[in-house]
């Protein structure tokens, strides 16, 4: 094999390894992309640039939706299904959860917003979805979410659905669950 063939071989091998690592780089890139575009409920938690003119705020209907991931036995539902809010003004809502099993369990709620272009105008100051939730057997709780919609939100958006899916992550770091129990 001559030298130029060796050179070709070398840069092709670099390309192969480069692309393999690029596939892993796609994971953070995807997160960044979702955050910039506000997709998948990956909203920014900063209040920067938000417009608070509560006097000029307009009416907005918020629907709260709760889902249980498959085989998640907890009771999980919004205290109010529909709420009237004003843009540019803080609002509070709560979700009721109850661990109705006889085992202590940990859960995580994953948020989503529809329509997705409402996302960039929504800021959550406090949300149970920011952290894991632990409940002892039979324990119940009211989980808060405190949010505000920017008053610059386009007029075309009058209804926003805030949806949460609750997952059982009790055994999450446990290898056994990762295998089969998690089904």
């Amino acid at each position, binding site marked *: *094999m001559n030298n130029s063939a060796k050179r070709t071989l070398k840069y*092709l091998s670099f390309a192969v390894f480069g692309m393999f690592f*690029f*596939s*892993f780089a*796609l994971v953070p890139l995807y997160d960044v992309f979702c955050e910039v575009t506000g997709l998948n409920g990956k909203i920014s938690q900063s209040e920067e640039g938000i417009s608070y003119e509560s006097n000029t705020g307009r009416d907005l209907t918020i629907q709260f939706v709760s889902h249980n991931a498959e085989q998640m036995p907890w009771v999980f539902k919004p205290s109010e299904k529909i709420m009237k809010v004003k843009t540019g003004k803080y609002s509070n809502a709560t979700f009721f959860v109850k661990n109705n099993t006889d085992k202590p369990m940990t859960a995580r709620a994953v948020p989503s917003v529809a329509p*997705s272009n409402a996302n960039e105008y929504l800021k959550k100051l406090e949300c149970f979805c920011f952290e894991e939730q632990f409940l002892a057997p039979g324990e119940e709780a009211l989980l808060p979410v405190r949010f505000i919609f920017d008053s610059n939100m386009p007029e075309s958006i009058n209804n926003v659905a805030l949806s949460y899916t609750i997952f059982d992550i009790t055994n*999450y770091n446990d*290898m056994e669950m990762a295998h089969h129990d998690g089904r």
Partner: protein
Amino acid sequence: MSSVIESHHDDHHHGPAKGLMRWLLTTNHKDIGTLYLWFSFAMFLIGGAMAMVIRAELFQPGMQIVEPEFYNQMLTLHGLIMVFGAVMPAFVGLANWLVPMMVGAPDMALPRLNNLSFWLLPFAFGILLSSLFMEGGAPNFGWTFYAPLSTTYAPPSVTFFIFSVHIMGASSIMGSINVIVTIMNMRAPGMDLMKMPLFVWSWLITAYLLIAVMPVLAGAVTMMLMDIHFGTSFFNAAGGGDPVLFQHIFWFFGHPEVYIMILPAFGIVSHIIETFSRKQLFGYSSMVWAMLSIAILSFVVWAHHMFTVGMPLAAELFFMWATMLIAVPTGVKVFNWVATMFKGSITYETPMLFAISFVVLFTIGGFSGLMLSIVPADFQYHDTYFVVAHFHYVLVPGSIFSIMAAVYYWIPKWTGNMYDERMGRLHFWLSFVGVNVTFFPQHWIGLAGMPRRYPDYALQFADWNMVSTAGAFLFGASQILFLFIVLKTVMGGKKATPQVWEGARGLEWSVESPAPYHTFSTPPKVN
């Protein structure tokens, strides 16, 4: 083919070794090409048998023959085996046989790597097929293996599936490295890039695509493996991951993969149409530029496979327009083929029949692809039989027909014998009718709303499904005829001249038929 090659072993300094070890240890590009082609043909028959199970179950509404769980396994393995086991190795086999002869090189640049990349394949597919006999059955999540179906809800055999994808990916990557190093460094003096035969060009571009995306596929299955066994959450929403991320990574691999399966076909068909039209190919350089632009565009259209996951409007519009843009270079190629035939003195031997029907039927598949690229229309067509009809039109009378055309076109060069022209034409017509009867009605039942991937369907789809199944069995049976024709040609037949076809040009036609075991030990002169 051994008998044929052995009869020439005194032509050069040494011939092939005897017996089984010849095939195990060979580093000869012709031997390895033969191995690849036979392997892909075996996989074609196995994947085809699975397609017959699927079509037999769909012959009538209701569950007749197999359990739904087994149906899902057949569906998954049929897709995986046809894509990775039949179409891709067949093209690699053709590249092995033809690229060195077409560029005037004595062999591939890395002969031992070549041996390794072939011999990985039987192991990869042995592992994949063995999962059929495991507890919980074979993979059942479709060839696109979307998470979490392929992670949280997968059968235990998914780990074997991941391992086999890793091995077949390694094989493809090594094969492509070999092709690129050969083409870039071993061309005969005087053969500039823009003088290379189009099949060589098509494979150079394909090999770059493979090197760019096979590692991404390896990354995707590695992430699956870590999610399943090591507690990570790349695709698990509970742990902060996202299943949609899987689809993005998969299709970032998957769309270039689609062109990996069609670009070599473009090269093959260009040669055949040129030969049997007895004219020089119309628009050589535009053909090269068209393939290059198709390859580059293939990296920016992946999300058209997932319009319905909930993307921002701007992204949907971008992917729609980028997808539609691909129709331009593809159209250039189709017009060039037609212009090559225009006023040519055409004869209709079997390779030409397959090549012409490639142009017509691939164009139909291309047009249904254009329909699918329209975002609002795709919301209607998504995951229906219209999609099934579309990708089978570009893969069966597209890629597979081009492979068959290539076999008929070059088999006289490989074996020294002419195939039986009458039987070849019979094979063509049976396949042509079979493929259209199978897949054309699927456009209609898809538009009428029949979803893909289900073992059962609503009654109003019964008639066309019955027709489709009849066509599938006709197509399947005619491939047995193909096997017979190939075997008969290997054993004997009318002796072929070196040029074989009156209009054939190119270095591979300058050596005798069958091609000696070693060709171009000294580089030929190219003018």
